[in-house]
């Protein structure tokens, strides 16, 4: 069964450094998402992406964040200058459509900012 994959599983970085989190969505899906979960807190929406552009973003998704689909398979989340409070589990998800369609989640990347 096709699955969303994410790399790396764990990323440790120094404050102020740039990180890129990678995701490979399910191949026939058209909608892509990033969520994050700070330890002990809710899973929070960051951004959704469709047809090579951002369709919606949350207030968390400020200028430090960007997303890209650099080729036909990868979907990346870049954090330009990491802060301590960016430490979280980052989940990628994809879906065939919107409005009631199941979002399939990846296993997550744990980002630790020191």
């Amino acid at each position: 069964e096709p699955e969303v994959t994410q790399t790396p599983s764990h990323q440790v970085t120094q404050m102020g450094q740039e990180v890129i989190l990678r995701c490979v969505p399910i191949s026939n899906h058209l909608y892509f998402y990033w969520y994050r979960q700070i330890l002990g807190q809710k899973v929070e929406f960051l951004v959704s992406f469709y047809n090579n552009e951002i369709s919606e973003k949350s207030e968390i998704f400020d200028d430090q964040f960007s997303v890209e689909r650099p080729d036909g398979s990868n979907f990346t989340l870049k954090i330009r200058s990491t802060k301590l409070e960016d430490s979280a589990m980052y989940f990628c998800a994809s879906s065939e459509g919107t409005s009631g369609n199941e979002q399939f989640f990846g296993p997550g990347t744990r980002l630790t900012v020191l």
Partner: protein
Amino acid sequence: AQRVTQPEKLLSVFKGAPVELKCNYSYSGSPELFWYVQYSRQRLQLLLRHISRESIKGFTADLNKGETSFHLKKPFAQEEDSAMYYCAGETSGSRLTFGEGTQLTVNP
């Protein structure tokens, strides 16, 4: 603002007992509502959605618009049901808004 709340962080029941995980929502319009589950060391996965009105692994959830609730129920809990359960609502833009999650433990 769209909001989903799960009042219980932890819920513990014995095998064979009924279980109900509570979820309340605050949405304008008609939300799409889901239950996602995360078993130990596994990824988040969809358990069920209100639009399908289905029963998965013996779980059901009914949307109660009057009480703005979408509680998850199972008449006889099994040990393999132990997991983290998240209620989530979807806006028109497909953004999922998650509740805090309820850790269900089913004791033998």
